[in-house]
């Protein structure tokens, strides 16, 4: 049968014609270029302009990198080696990397301490950032502030231990009472912690150590990129709880509390950070008791924390407002009181919505920590503008230094924003 039908109708093809390849200009890279680079005359012009710009940048920058000098002692020596050819004097980085990272007064033999603190920081941040890691790592996170304080400032281990004891005591009191009443547990915990700190503080001897591996380093000796990182991490983590409290206060039905929060948030958001830093450097000291000496680092931390908590409060308020009203009503109908409803139902959802916003604030704040150089703290920017560019060896090396600073900030900020986008995808529980 099959033979018959194929033979009887002679003009019907029996085998498939192989597909002929597409024309050369409709396949492969040519097609891609036609579609993406030269689709219209305007596009062609844009492509040529863009390609020219890229070409100029690459040809301008390449010899500068390729001829870079990494091993000279000063700018004059570097220029002598270069002998007029284009090239970067990157030796300022190999010569002064320690100052860029740690500041110019941190004892060089102690660099391992902040480095170790940084490594522990990565460990401590990991379980917070990636939910799939074992939860046991959170212990590192909880201990990190005390370890980091001890490693960076040095001194007797009793000081951070006392701080830890206070927090632990507060937590014990909190978990004892929180089942009855959240407010009682919360305030009881705070009071207990303060009691332990005051009593312990009066007993504890002065913890300053003058030499050895754990010798004390005063705050004014901190500097460089380390200072930026410290300010960023400390202020963001401190401002999260304050920001949540402010956001809840702003949503509150009690007019007095609401308006206090509104005034605080609008005031802080209305003034530039630099004026708040002026407050920290010239004004804040007047508001402490005359006998207390609060060092500049702490004052700056206070002001930056207030600053970022106002911004975080606004972000979280957006998250609270975005929740459907049914969630609040459902919590009420279950008979939960305010603290329970917030803790168990509202905040987990609202915080999830506001994570991208919080990360944005964190990135912005980390960039803004460079402003402390204006009030003569020697962070990364302050180090470059001050001690390094003013030194006789390196006076005039601009691009290498600013490039290095830009790269450091870019890596951190770009990394954080990529993480935030990743997290948004992870947390997207909506319909796809």
């Amino acid at each position: 049968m099959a033979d018959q039908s194929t033979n009887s109708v002679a003009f019907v093809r029996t085998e498939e014609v192989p597909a002929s390849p597409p024309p050369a200009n409709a396949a492969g890279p040519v097609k891609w270029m036609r579609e993406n680079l030269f689709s219209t005359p305007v596009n062609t012009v844009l492509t040529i302009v863009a390609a020219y710009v890229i070409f100029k940048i690459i040809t301008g920058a390449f010899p500068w990198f390729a001829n870079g000098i990494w091993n000279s002692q000063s700018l004059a020596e570097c220029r002598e080696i270069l002998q007029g050819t284009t090239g970067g004097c990157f030796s300022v980085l190999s010569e002064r990397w320690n100052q860029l990272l740690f500041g110019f007064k941190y004892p060089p033999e102690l660099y391992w301490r902040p480095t170790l603190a940084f490594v522990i920081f990565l460990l401590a941040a990991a379980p917070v950032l990636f939910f799939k890691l074992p939860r046991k790592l959170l212990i590192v996170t909880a201990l990190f502030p005390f370890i980091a304080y001890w490693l960076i400032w040095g001194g007797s281990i009793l000081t951070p231990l006392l701080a830890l004891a206070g927090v632990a005591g507060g937590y014990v009191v909190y978990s004892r009472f929180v089942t009855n009443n959240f407010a009682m547990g919360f305030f009881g915990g705070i009071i207990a912690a303060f009691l332990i700190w005051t009593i312990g503080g009066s007993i504890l001897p002065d913890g300053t150590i003058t030499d050895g591996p754990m010798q004390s380093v005063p705050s004014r000796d901190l500097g460089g990129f380390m200072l930026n990182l410290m300010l960023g991490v400390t202020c963001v983590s401190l401002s999260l709880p304050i920001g949540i409290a402010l956001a809840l206060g702003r949503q509150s039905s009690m007019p007095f509390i609401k308006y206090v929060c509104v005034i605080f948030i609008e005031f802080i958001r209305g003034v530039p950070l630099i004026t708040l830093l002026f407050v920290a450097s010239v004004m804040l000291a007047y508001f402490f008791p005359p006998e207390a000496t609060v060092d500049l680092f702490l004052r700056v931390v206070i002001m930056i924390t207030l600053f970022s908590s106002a911004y975080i409060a606004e972000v979280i308020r957006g998250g609270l407002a975005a929740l459907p009203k049914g969630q609040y009503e459902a919590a009420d109908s279950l008979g939960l009181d305010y603290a329970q409803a917030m803790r168990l139902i509202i905040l987990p959802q609202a915080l999830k919505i506001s994570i991208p916003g919080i990360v944005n604030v964190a990135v912005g704040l980390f960039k803004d920590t460079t402003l402390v150089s204006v009030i003569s703290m020697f962070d990364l920017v302050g180090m470059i503008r001050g001690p390094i560019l003013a030194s006789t060896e390196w006076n005039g090396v601009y691009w290498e230094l600013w490039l290095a600073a830009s790269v450091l900030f870019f890596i951190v900020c770009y990394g954080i924003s990529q993480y935030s986008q990743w997290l948004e995808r992870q947390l997207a529980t909506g319909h796809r």
Partner: protein
Amino acid sequence: MTIMTDPPRESFRLGMLLSDTRYRSLTLQAIAFILLALSIGYLANNLVRNLTALGLNIDFSFLGTPAGYDINQRLIEYTSQSSNLRAAFVGILNTLLVAFLACVTATIFGVLAGVLRLSNNWLVRKLMSIYVEIFRNIPVLIWIIIIFTIMTAVLPGPRAFRGDNATSSMLFDAFAFTNRGVYIPAPIWGPGSMVVVATFIASIVAMFAYRRYATNLLYATGRLLPMFWPSVAIFFLPAILMFFIMGSPIGLEYPELKGFNFAGGIKVGGPLIAIWFALSIYTGAFIAENVRAGIQAVSKGQTEAAGALGLRSGRIMSLVVLPQALRVIIPPLISNYLNITKNSSLAILVGYADVTATLGGITLNQTGRAIECVVLLMLFYLVISLTISFVINIYNNAIKLKER
């Protein structure tokens, strides 16, 4: 602010203050009020004790005394004998000047980059996303310093323009880029120039009137008048005609090399350019993201629906997509303007005499009146921010989707 508890006469027990929902919020507010008052009192007490210990007081009379320092960038008359208050005003005007200039250019950069990021040209798209990522992720402070360094360390001094074998030359013989600033031609207002300016203003009004008339006509009758070319014509032609009728009353004074420096023209100082340009490209990257998000927020169905109605692509953009995108773009755009104004306080770093540098910098250091200066400075920025947020709120209410 006043806490009034008016307990009923009978059946009131103290425990009800906490357990009864009628009283609980009042109790909590009273506690909060007392705590706040106590902490403010504590801080104020510390302040008074500190000030008396140092022999200081709070006194604003320093504003009237001569400032005693010079400001090279000023919009109003000012000498070193002028009062500190006037120095602060010079600073305020400088802040507003740089904020205004930066807002305009940042918008241009931002809209351009935002639109180009959506272009179907792969190379341009990638280039623009590199621009946005680089500028958003590096502190504005570093950008300001980098551009200021370019202004002062890379641009040639006026000396390089001199002599027969000058190494630098002026652009079009009108613009000189030197390390002391950029010199541009200054307009000379001859007699009759006011007529030209008045004509120009009148033609702007006429242009808007024409556009309004055309829109009304379109909505009322459906008749479509050409919009773009008549607008351009009304904008330019009358002023140009009047310019030649009056005999070219407006001239240009070109900057010229005299001695060791340029004379004539308008000098735009290096610090101003550094802070202006840095704020523009930095904030432009943020605006680009807003613009892109705004355009992408308009669902594709809108474009398709407009296409199904038979609109051409230009009209789809102007009548359907843009009005909806602007609703998303403008509120963050205004808050970016606010950020520019606040970030302009970084001008102090490059020596641009804005209000932070005059009132919060030199005046503060010379008079030692830290508290007064910082408070006044904050007040100024607060007024600006509150004004701008007021505008945002009005706009948001105006464009809110009117649901029936």
